[in-house]
């Protein structure tokens, strides 16, 4: 018998083992849900898959009686729009600050300590300030995402910029490059895959801020909906919504990873 650290499951076994926990969780849920519903058919805590399907069907494929909108898609669109806008602005701000502080010592000196302090401010604690300053509209929700995510991206990009080997910067200078040319031709192209990476890592936080902001003040959005129906204990809506948010998060992450691999093949030297 080999040592445990040397035993590697074969590919199909790995796949099966990977699926196993999902199957177990769903099975346990089904058994528990059946048991509760058998005792009390109006139980709301663990709805059956059929009940969840019905709830989502009416939200996704029947116009709302009040506004005539398809609420599920309306929620999805609003949330994704806010998240995308917030992350996009945060990426641009974070990338610029990170690049400049990482590459240019005389910008690093005044900005870097400030950046460190700002990134330690808990963004959620600033949410009331944002509501006071920007009102309860779209702006404060997007601003929360930007404030929460941009410092993280800036610090990550700053670190990556400083990690570019000095040899490359010296080499570029011996080829006659100016500071601007080094930034444009050497640093920015090499940092773009790092930016995608930083965005992927910050998306989790982005979702957190989005749902928090929607829960507190909004009229639509995925976060708004689950906090709204919580009042009626509608687990048949909450659970599919959570699953849907998870799926969306997974898809966005996968899409970014794929894009990075296609656009920057040189960044992945060990994969063929």
């Amino acid at each position, binding site marked *: 018998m080999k040592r445990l650290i040397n035993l590697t499951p074969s590919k199909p076994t790995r796949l099966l083992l990977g699926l196993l926990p999902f199957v177990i969780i769903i099975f346990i849920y089904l058994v528990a849900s059946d048991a509760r519903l058998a005792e009390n058919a109006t139980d709301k805590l663990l709805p059956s898959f059929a009940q969840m399907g019905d709830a989502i069907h009416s939200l996704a494929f029947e116009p709302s009686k009040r506004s005539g909108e398809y609420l599920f898609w309306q929620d999805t669109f609003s949330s994704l729009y806010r998240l995308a806008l917030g992350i996009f602005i945060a990426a641009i701000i974070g990338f610029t600050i990170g690049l400049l502080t990482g590459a240019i010592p005389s910008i690093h000196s005044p900005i870097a300590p400030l950046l460190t302090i700002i990134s330690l401010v808990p963004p959620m604690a600033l949410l009331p300030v944002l509501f006071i300053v920007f009102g309860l509209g779209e702006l404060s929700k997007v601003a929360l995402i930007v404030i929460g995510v941009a410092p993280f991206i800036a610090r990550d990009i700053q670190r990556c910029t400083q990690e570019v*080997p000095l040899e*490359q910067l010296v*080499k*570029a200078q*011996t080829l006659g490059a100016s500071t601007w*040319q080094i930034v444009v*031709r050497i640093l920015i192209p090499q940092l773009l895959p790092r930016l995608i990476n930083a965005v992927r890592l910050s998306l989790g936080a982005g979702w957190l801020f989005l749902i928090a902001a929607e829960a507190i003040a909004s009229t639509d959005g995925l976060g708004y909906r689950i906090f709204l129906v919580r009042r009626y204990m509608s687990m048949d809506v909450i659970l599919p919504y959570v699953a849907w948010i998870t799926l969306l998060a997974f898809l966005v992450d996968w899409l970014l990873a794929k894009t990075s691999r296609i656009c920057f093949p*040189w*960044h992945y030297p060990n994969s063929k």
Partner: protein
Amino acid sequence: MTILPFDKKILDEKRAKAMPLIKAKNLWKKYGDNVVLERMNVSVNAGEFITMVGTSGCGKSTFLKMLLGMESPSSGELLLEGKPIPDEPDQSRGIVFQQYSVFPHLTVLQNVIIAREFEHSPILGKLFGSAKRNVVEEAKALLESVGLTHALNRYPHELSGGMKQRLAIAQALIRQPRILLLDEPFGALDPGIRADMHQLILQLWREHQLTVFMVTHDLSEGFYLGTRLWVFDKLRRDNQAPNAYGASITYDLPVTRRKNEIPAELQTITKETQDL
């Protein structure tokens, strides 16, 4: 005895020929209390191939960095054609490092043409159309001379160590520097490939009329490639304060190629450097 008529032009030419390309005058380098180099007095003429050997931390890399402009002298002077050497790297001095010399995000061809793009396109740093085609032709010719024609569109991570260094050399030569600095360029290569690289660098040195400064750990490589071999070591030592005195050039040996014997007094250093 004939007295030659005074001719200022001839005199200037003679002076220019007599003026060394690089001259160090009582050069010192210190980091705080740590003296790395002291009392260096040396001059180098255009066209020499200098190889520098010595134990780790003996200042040969520091001297190379000063030639490159990454470090400045603490006192004394380091002159390039009679003027203080520029205190930041520029296109007058090419460099090949042991690693990280090439840009990982550019293909072989792009790695070479980028130097011309820096030269001709100050804002975008990129060339298009016919300007680009000319540069590409030039780069292809240069890449052919280092034997990389078959790999023009590959990224550096797809190249072997030897090919990467070939690329780094081609890249360093495209802006036609007069001085080529090599910082242990072949240290990480296999012996067979290293021999190929030796032939390549000697050929390029002759073709491009370069003045080469090369740091190496391999004394036989130093003797084989150089026209002049410098050994860096400390002339004075204080065991209570090992950093109190700096190194200097303790042997400055003219080397005739093919005479590949190592003088007896250097045998111990050979051993030391090979142990590293």
